[in-house]
């Protein structure tokens, strides 16, 4: 209810005047994105332009503003071009202005799936689970980067991961997974698939592009090849067997996907719906599971996370004392994904994988050399 009220208030504040300003700033992002036949030496300039345009979107979403630019009436000294860049990656640029952030999503984002994911985040059934968006700008040209606007939430302190809200994350996931997808009416399109397997495949593509010749790459490939096709994003998940059910999934859980809203003491909420959709809910537990399996996440933190999930009746695993029948494949996939990105990143930075990255690479080696399962008969 609290969330619905906050959302309603934001919507009420969106006058025609502000909607116009929001649309103009968004058009600039779209225009920039549409002109992205960009030689590498000007990529930085284009990125900077996207960031400036996003700052304007965030500014417009946060405050009453003057159409077409000028100083921000709410912040005075900040002009339309001022914003704090929170993230700037090819798959997402996020700029904050005051109480709002604007995000330019990945080029090539499916527009219907994107609008559906935003509508899920705004749906009353997800109140208290997903951060709802602010009214988002009109859609641009088909090839543009879609833009969305969100309230600013306070993230987990990266300098103090030990204080991370593991239990809150687990309970939010359990609540998300228990949402009946059929109850989400009024969406602009069908619920898209959760993009976890697609992201793992994209990580393998990055490995092949950036570090194909690294001595550790063959072990990563071997572990990848042993995953079932659905976990490699090459076929839909099976309707039976180890994938127990299809649930609404976040698709990219990590500690950067949690914020407190309202700041600074509001409840924790999940953010970033870019990979949200229907899939195996075990995928959302698989990254912490992979960290635990690699020997990186302390067993007691893994226990806290898993215990909070099962105590909240999360459906991804059938038994808290043995979650691995459901977690095994997704956790292997996340291990491969993390290892592939570690090789790509370390190659890009001209260094060897560090100790933590090596722990994940070693897990890949074990996955690739594990004795096969007895599969000649169905287990009883």
């Amino acid at each position, binding site marked *: 209810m609290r969330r619905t009220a906050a959302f309603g208030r934001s919507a009420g504040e969106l006058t025609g005047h502000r909607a116009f300003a929001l649309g103009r700033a968004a058009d600039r992002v779209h225009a920039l994105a549409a002109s992205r036949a960009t030689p590498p030496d000007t990529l930085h300039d284009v990125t900077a332009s996207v960031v400036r345009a996003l700052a304007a979107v965030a500014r417009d979403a946060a405050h009453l503003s003057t159409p077409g630019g000028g100083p921000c009436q709410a912040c005075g000294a900040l002009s339309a071009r001022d914003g704090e860049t929170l993230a700037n990656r090819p798959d997402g640029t996020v700029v904050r202005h005051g109480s709002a952030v604007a995000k330019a999503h990945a080029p090539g984002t499916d527009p219907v799936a994107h609008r559906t994911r935003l509508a899920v985040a705004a749906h009353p059934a997800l109140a208290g689970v997903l951060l709802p968006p602010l009214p988002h700008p009109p859609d641009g040209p088909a090839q543009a980067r879609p833009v969305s606007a969100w309230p600013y939430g306070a993230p*987990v302190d990266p300098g103090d991961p030990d204080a991370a809200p593991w239990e809150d994350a687990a309970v939010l996931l359990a609540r998300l997974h228990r949402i009946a997808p059929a109850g989400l009416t009024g969406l602009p399109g069908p619920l898209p698939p959760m993009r976890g397997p697609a992201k793992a495949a994209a990580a393998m593509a990055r490995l092949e592009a950036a570090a194909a010749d690294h001595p550790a790459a063959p072990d990563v490939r071997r572990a990848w090849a042993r995953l079932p096709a659905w976990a490699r994003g090459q076929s839909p998940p099976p309707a039976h067997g180890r994938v127990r059910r299809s649930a609404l999934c976040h698709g990219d859980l990590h500690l950067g996907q949690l914020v407190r809203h309202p700041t600074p003491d509001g409840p924790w909420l999940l953010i970033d719906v870019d990979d949200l959709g229907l899939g195996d809910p075990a995928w959302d537990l698989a990254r912490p599971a992979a960290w635990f*399996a690699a*020997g990186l996440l302390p*067993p007691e933190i893994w226990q806290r996370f898993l215990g909070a999930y099962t105590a909240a009746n999360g459906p991804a695993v059938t038994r808290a004392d043995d979650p*691995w029948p459901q977690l*095994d494949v997704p956790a292997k996939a996340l291990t491969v994904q993390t290892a592939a990105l570690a090789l790509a990143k370390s190659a890009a930075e001209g260094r060897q994988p560090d100790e933590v990255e090596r722990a*994940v690479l070693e897990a890949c080696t074990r996955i690739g050399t594990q004795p096969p399962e007895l599969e000649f008969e169905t287990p009883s």
Partner: protein
Amino acid sequence: MQCPKCHAAMHTYNRNSVQIEQCSGCRGIFLDYGELEALTRLESQWAQQAPPAPQAYPAAPAPAAPAWGAPHHGGHHGHHRQRSFGRMLFSS
């Protein structure tokens, strides 16, 4: 039945009319009394050994882990490791 080694669930398979329990985690195989002899008699190709006899269980059992998991956890808590893992915790 739980695996005495890693505590994961064991699944029952039937091979040449002999019941075999295999751990879903570490893939270890458990044979009941007489089953190994039965398999030997049947001249099957099995060369695997039964997992070691149950050791003393730890007071607080460690969480179940997959067979491909790290042999042991923690031990290193250097500054660089913490910083690097901190980055990993926050990235896609």
